């Protein structure tokens, strides 16, 4: 059964293949955890049982994924058929049956994603067991872990699905779970607003995905990946022979792209992600690192063969990615809330990934997703530890020198490593993955891609600056801290005044931070494995659907890059190889950024909120610094351009409803009332009046009779 084609055939025949069926556990274990935690909530369990159950089941899911990868990783695509989920037929012809199974399409791209999704989710869940401990008594603990597991289940549906419909289920599912978890503190208006914002902005993107899905079905007559990719290969051959792709194939990527932009927080739909930190910090880590935001990157990477056929979509993806990277970095530079800085850094790094996809280096994008997942989880969980220990304090002007406070060493180291990776410091994982994208941007032919490379390089400098701005401000300088406003009513330190003692992270948080630090550093290692494909991740991408078509599309992306490399190697020039050149350039840029952060924020610093050079610089750069601090007024712009007109329209429609529709209905009811009102005076209760009526009537009848006779 080790022959992949046999398995593929067996699976396509619909017979559950027992040798691969156990892979279904990967999505089903988180679902089981979700259901169990829901039951624990119903039974009113107040211990840490829900947390440990979730950690255990997710860990098992990770082990299953890992062993699955080790057994089948090199075997090409597998289809594991679960059950027929949906089958609607309205004819016998092709394209007249809509069928979608709960089936898994597993190739190396899926393995890559599932490894870090389940792995990081397990670690973040373990972290949450301690972080969420205060909610044990209210029952929020079990609810939290139930949603958490559901999130992982939905993400695995999204990533492992073998058809677009199951992907859509997962897509909407992660949207729902993000709503539930961002709005976890549902009594807090800002959390509810952020949850709604995330959900609604995502809906805008989802519309694009839904339309893309429908058009895919209309054009290809199926939603299954294997058939779509087979058809794409045919179209690819036609294009290479000088033909042109059908307009649908050019349009579908543009629609899918809109969905990806919504889910992965790209311009213009990125506004939900920074607000999403209203949820508990581990949720932010989960959304930013493992689930949700990488879904858009996955979608584009999965359908890269189709994107490769649509130059318009590729160009848009690249430009939007670079634009988002730069914009988010400039906003991140001016924020004071450390979690918010991290949120904008995610938006910015996602921009890099889309830039990578746009310039057809799926390897670079996937590798950046992989390294980013580790270091962003590290950064967020370190921020979470600070927030947890200092009663919700996140303002970098109110915290200083934490590295010197006893008990915070692990957090400081984690933050340092995370920031180094984020800044792309030489030798860290972020360094290799970012450079791969930037180098490709410089060498790939495309509309202004060289400019995008420069933008990306500049953004790398900004990234280094804002990452270390946070690190230097919070962990270095004079020791000073002020508690936040959140009251953690546990063991005794309830006094927020002089008697405030930060409570240093416990074993679970420290363990997870250490694991993630190791992970972030070790994520650089895959770069050196499998040199031929630019690292282990490159190998995985090359053997997936994304790799094959890219390899086939001559004159594009990596193929061209390799040609360039070969030419450079012939001439023997060191700067001829874009990757070597980029290593040097980005090391310099990153180092400058870090140095600037040191100079600006550490020189003459006397207290947490006073850094003379930074303050002077901020005053000097007004109004730009203020604008960046206010996020370039994008939220206000959306408010003015979209929310207010919509609200106005709603008011107008309400008026029309009240005046016209209600008026009509009320009018129908009013007519009998008016008739009754006009008759009412005749019934005045006077006996004589009635008698006159009677007599008059009698006379009238008599007169009529007389007149007729």
């Amino acid at each position, binding site marked *: 059964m080790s022959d992949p084609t046999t398995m593929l055939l067996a699976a396509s025949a619909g017979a559950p293949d027992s040798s691969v069926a156990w892979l279904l556990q990967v999505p089903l274990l988180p679902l089981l955890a979700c259901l169990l935690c829901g039951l624990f909530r119903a039974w009113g369990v107040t211990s840490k049982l829900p947390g440990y159950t979730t950690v255990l089941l997710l860990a098992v899911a990770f082990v299953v994924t890992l062993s699955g990868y080790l057994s089948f990783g090199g075997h090409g695509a597998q289809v594991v058929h679960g059950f027929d989920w949906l089958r609607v037929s309205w004819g016998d012809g092709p394209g007249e049956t809509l069928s979608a199974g709960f089936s898994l399409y597993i190739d190396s791209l899926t393995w890559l994603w599932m490894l870090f999704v389940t792995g990081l989710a397990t670690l973040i869940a373990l972290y949450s067991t301690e972080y969420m401990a205060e909610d044990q008594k209210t029952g929020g603990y079990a609810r939290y872990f139930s949603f958490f597991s559901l999130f992982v289940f939905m993400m695995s549906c999204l990533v492992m699905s073998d058809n677009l419909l199951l992907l859509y289920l997962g897509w909407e599912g992660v949207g729902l779970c993000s709503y539930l978890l961002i709005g976890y503190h549902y009594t807090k208006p800002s959390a509810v607003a952020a949850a709604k914002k995330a959900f609604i902005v995502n809906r805008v993107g989802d519309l694009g995905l839904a339309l893309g899905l429908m058009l895919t079905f209309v054009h290809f007559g199926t939603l299954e990946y294997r058939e779509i990719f087979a058809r794409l290969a045919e179209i690819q051959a036609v294009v290479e022979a000088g033909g042109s792709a059908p307009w649908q194939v050019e349009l579908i990527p543009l629609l899918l792209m809109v969905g990806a932009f919504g889910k992965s927080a790209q311009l213009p739909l990125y506004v939900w992600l920074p607000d999403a930190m209203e949820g508990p910090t581990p949720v932010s880590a989960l959304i930013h690192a493992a689930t949700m935001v990488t879904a858009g990157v996955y979608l584009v990477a999965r359908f890269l063969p189709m994107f490769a056929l649509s130059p318009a979509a590729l160009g848009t993806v690249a430009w939007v990615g670079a634009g988002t990277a730069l914009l988010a970095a400039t906003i991140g530079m001016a924020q004071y809330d450390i979690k918010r800085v991290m949120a904008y850094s995610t938006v910015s790094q996602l921009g890099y990934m889309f830039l990578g996809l746009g310039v057809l280096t799926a390897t670079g994008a996937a590798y950046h997703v992989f390294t980013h997942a580790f270091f962003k989880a590290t950064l967020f969980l370190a921020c979470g530890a600070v927030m947890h220990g200092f009663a919700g304090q996140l303002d970098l002007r109110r915290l200083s020198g934490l590295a010197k406070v006893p008990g915070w060493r692990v957090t400081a180291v984690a933050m340092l490593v995370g920031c180094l990776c984020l800044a792309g410091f030489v030798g860290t994982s972020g360094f290799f993955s970012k450079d791969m994208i930037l180098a490709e941007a410089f060498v790939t032919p495309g509309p202004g891609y060289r400019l995008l490379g420069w933008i990306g390089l500049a953004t790398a400098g900004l990234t280094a600056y804002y990452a270390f701005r946070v690190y230097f401000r919070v962990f270095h300088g004079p020791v000073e801290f002020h508690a936040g406003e959140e009251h953690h009513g546990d063991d005794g330190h309830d006094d927020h005044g002089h008697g405030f003692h930060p409570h240093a992270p416990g074993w679970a948080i420290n363990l997870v931070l250490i694991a993630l630090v190791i992970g972030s550093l070790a994520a650089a290692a895959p770069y050196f494995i499998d040199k031929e494909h630019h690292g282990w991740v490159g190998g995985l991408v090359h053997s997936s659907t994304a790799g094959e078509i890219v390899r086939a599309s001559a004159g594009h992306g990596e193929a061209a890059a390799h040609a360039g490399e070969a030419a450079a190697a012939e001439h023997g020039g060191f700067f001829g190889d874009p990757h070597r050149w980029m290593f040097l350039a980005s090391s310099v840029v990153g180092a400058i950024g870090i140095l600037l952060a040191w100079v600006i924020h550490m020189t003459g610093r006397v207290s947490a909120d006073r850094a003379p050079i930074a303050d002077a610089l901020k005053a000097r750069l007004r109004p730009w610094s203020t604008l960046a601090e206010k996020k370039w007024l994008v939220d206000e712009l959306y408010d003015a351009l979209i929310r207010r007109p919509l609200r106005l329209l709603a008011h107008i429609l309400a008026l029309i409803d009240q005046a016209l529709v209600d008026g009509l209905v009320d009018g129908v009811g009013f007519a009998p009332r008016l008739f009754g009102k006009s*008759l*009412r005076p*005749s019934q*005045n*209760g*006077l*006996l*004589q009046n009635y*008698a006159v009526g009677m007599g008059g009537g009698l006379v009238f009848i008599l007169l009529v009779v007389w007149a007729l006779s």
Partner: protein
Amino acid sequence: MTALLAQASAFGSVTLYHYLFVSAALFALGVIGFLSRRNLIIMFLCTELMFQGAGLALIAFGRHWMNPTGQVFVIFVLTIAAAEAALALGLVVYLYRRKSTLDAQAWAELAG
């Protein structure tokens, strides 16, 4: 009207028309009384007057056509009128007790 009276005198005896005239007069008096007075008892008496007017007409026609049905009918009417009078006067007494007045206007609160 004068033609009718002339006809009656021409025959020199009391004819059907005389009875009908008296009957109509009684009925008209009853109607006028009922409409113009607001005292419940007077109004009730006026309805009795209208009754008698109608009864007289019935008897006169019965005699004219030599058919006893009219007379029998009137006897019935009288009987029922007697019972009804007892009932109506009882009601009037009751109404008087409620409002200490016999004015029909006092009971105009059933206006629509």
